[in-house]
């Protein structure tokens, strides 16, 4: 059931209890976790934090902790599957689920006792009504019973036969109704569960809880902003929703900034200041050189077509048009001349309008504490994602989770900077892979979708054995492909991308993303499609990830799986 008053029905319930937090591995979940941890520290609620990377981890964690905890809080996992069926908990376990995955499973919505959804009821849900899906079974038992009895020819009795005449007709009528109702129900459920998409950020939900309890701080606000920006960076929500949520956050930011800061009363430079920025869409540009950032950001790279020689010439023209000398542009941003930096944003916007890039600027937030530390929300998202999916050292996922969680605190700046370095490497790897895929025509049109497979020897292919990195690569690749192809029909197709995940076990990671368009609603149907294709070909797949459009598949089963998908989707 949906929780209406999050403070009364969630926070005050767990305030005197011990809670288990099961947190998924994405930045929004990490930020939500940080906010909730800060609230729990404030009120001294004892908790245990367990990172979970997929359904199997969730099951194991639940089994390990179910004897010790009664209250479980699931962050960014568990809403889109029948949780009680999967975990088989005891009667008194209560689950609080704050998840951005939609559609929310109908059993989770209509269970009154054990599942409490920390989701706003009007959050773009469209849940079918109760009567359309569930039906009281009492009438059917009677009809069923008499039906059974008459079918058992071992006990026919003359009296029964006479009474059953009218009953038989009624029974036939009921059975027909039931079949119709079931057909309708299947259709409704199919429509409801067909497309997968994302709702409001979990970090924002918990920030609202903090705000309603008047325990919100600037740190929590910043985490909420990062959680929201994660949804934008990884293309999980539509632009409209992002802008609406930014407006909500902006209200909170201005409330926090209204601290009578004037000439007499100025805050120390070390205090944290969050400000609204209408800043450039160049990834990490303040911590890199402007040139590198333009070369490696998806937006600019796709518009200039930087994988072609022509595109690189255009980039030089663009820089010359703005009057930026190459020497300045290639050095670290912090060392650029002040005169250039002052009007940089407006100058770039003007020039990019000439080159067809109308939205080079995006609404976002930046934080500023101390003399050296300025970060944009998207910088933090990229850094933390790179730490979370770090493939450089052979560390297990929980170590990476903890490092990423730590990097969100203001006191762990070296970790954040190391994350930014990793993010830069990742972006450069993505750009090179995109360039090579397009130049060597690795993207094939299979009819209803586009398909690309990264061979094992591709440089940096180890980076793409992680789901978020592979998804980011696919989105960039699709955008670049749309710019480079002349085939109009291909531009409207979705993309499926596969990359080797585990060489020893011989599996690949397969990711499906919806087609790219201006008005895309980011709804992804690949989840169900993958399930059906796997079933029909009995391929060995592992649907472990919380996003159903990301699966692991045995390399040998790749071709038959693809063929099944093609037949399914055409």
């Amino acid at each position, binding site marked *: 059931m949906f929780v209406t008053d999050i403070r009364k029905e969630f926070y005050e319930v767990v305030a005197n209890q011990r809670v288990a937090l099961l947190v998924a591995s994405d930045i929004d979940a990490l930020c939500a976790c940080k906010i909730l*941890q800060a609230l729990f*520290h404030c009120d001294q609620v*004892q*908790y245990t*934090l367990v990172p979970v990377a997929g359904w199997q981890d969730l099951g194991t964690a639940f089994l390990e902790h179910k004897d*010790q905890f009664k209250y479980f809080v699931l962050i960014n996992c568990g809403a889109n599957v029948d949780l009680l069926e999967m975990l088989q908990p005891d009667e008194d376990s209560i689950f609080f689920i704050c998840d951005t995955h939609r559609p929310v499973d109908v059993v989770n919505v209509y269970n009154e006792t054990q599942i409490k959804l920390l989701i706003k009821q009007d959050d773009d849900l469209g849940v079918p009504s109760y009567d359309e899906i569930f039906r009281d079974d009492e009438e059917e038992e009677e009809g069923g019973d008499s039906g059974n009895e008459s079918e058992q020819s071992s006990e026919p009795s003359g009296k029964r036969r006479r009474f059953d005449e009218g009953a038989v007709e009624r029974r036939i009528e009921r059975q027909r109704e039931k079949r119709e109702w079931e057909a309708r129900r299947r259709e409704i459920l199919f429509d409801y569960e067909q497309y997968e998409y994302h709702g409001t950020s979990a970090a924002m939900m918990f920030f609202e809880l903090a705000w309603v309890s008047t325990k919100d701080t600037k740190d929590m606000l910043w985490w909420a902003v990062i959680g929201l920006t994660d949804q934008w960076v990884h293309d999980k929500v539509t632009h409209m929703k992002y802008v609406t949520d930014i407006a909500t956050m902006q209200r909170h930011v201005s409330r926090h900034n209204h601290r009578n800061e004037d000439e007499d009363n100025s805050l120390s430079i070390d205090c944290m200041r969050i400000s609204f920025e209408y800043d450039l869409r160049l990834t990490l540009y303040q911590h890199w050189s402007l040139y590198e950032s333009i070369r490696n950001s998806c937006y600019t790279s796709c518009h200039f077509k930087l994988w072609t020689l022509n595109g690189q010439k255009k980039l030089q023209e663009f820089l010359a048009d703005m009057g930026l000398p190459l020497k300045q542009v290639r050095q670290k941003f912090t060392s650029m001349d002040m005169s250039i930096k002052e009007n940089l944003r407006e100058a770039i916007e003007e020039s990019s309008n000439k080159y067809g890039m109308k939205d080079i600027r995006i609404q976002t937030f930046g934080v500023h504490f101390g003399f050296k530390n300025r970060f944009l929300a998207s910088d933090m998202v990229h850094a933390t994602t790179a730490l979370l999916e770090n493939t450089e050292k052979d560390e297990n996922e929980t170590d990476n989770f*903890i490092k990423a969680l730590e990097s969100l605190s203001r006191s762990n700046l070296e970790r954040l900077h190391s994350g930014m370095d990793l993010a830069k490497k990742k972006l450069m790897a993505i750009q090179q892979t995109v360039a090579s895929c397009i130049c060597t025509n690795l993207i094939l049109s299979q009819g209803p979708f586009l398909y690309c497979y990264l061979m094992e020897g591709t440089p940096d292919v180890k980076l793409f054995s992680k789901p978020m990195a592979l998804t980011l690569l696919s989105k960039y690749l699709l955008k670049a492909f749309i710019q480079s192809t002349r085939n109009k029909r291909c531009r409207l197709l979705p993309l499926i991308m596969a990359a080797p995940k585990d060489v020893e076990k011989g599996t690949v990671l397969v990711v499906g993303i919806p087609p790219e368009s201006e008005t895309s609603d980011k709804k992804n149907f690949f989840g169900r499609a993958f399930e059906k294709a796997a079933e029909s070909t009995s391929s060995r797949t592992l649907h472990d990830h919380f996003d159903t459009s990301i699966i692991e598949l045995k390399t040998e089963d790749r071709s038959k799986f693809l063929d099944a998908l093609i037949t399914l989707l055409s």
Partner: protein
Amino acid sequence: MFCEKAVELIRELQRMNDGQLPAFNEDGVRQVLQEMEALYEHNQTDVNETKSEQRADLLPSIRLRHCCLLRNQRCVGAYLYDRLLRIRALRWEYGSVLPANVRFHMSAEELQWFARYKKSLASFMRSLGGGGGLDVTQDMKPPKSLYIQVRCVKDHGELEMDDGTLVLLKKNSQHFLPRWTCEHLIRQGVLEHVVS
């Protein structure tokens, strides 16, 4: 040279400046005591000789030996006392049960002294707090909060808390627990205090 053995004992202690307890150097102490005995014997004979034969030229050597005896006494006294201070600090750091490797380094008398110190400390703690007893060895620094956030560094299995509930300590899980339950595990190295 006289008194060298005694100074060596002191140097041994100084090498381990951080409060660690090296093994009890029984040989060294015995050698120093033997030297003191030898010096005393010599002095005795010389004093008797001086008294009987009125020889004034033995007085400087008697005085020298006497100074050496005093020095040896001071050194051995300092050695034993410093070790006792270190053992006392161990009680405050490790609790009433010392790890086996530390106990191995202590002599029998030191162990006895430790047992008596423990008893004395325990009766003192019992007398505090209006007869209820107060464990003063906890919270050596004033704690900032009742609960602390800890991360589990190695698998430890289940931990039972004061109210009987269990917490599963698995590697890399993070917990927010009362300070008093975690402190000894932090000292053992199973949990790590997370400061954010």
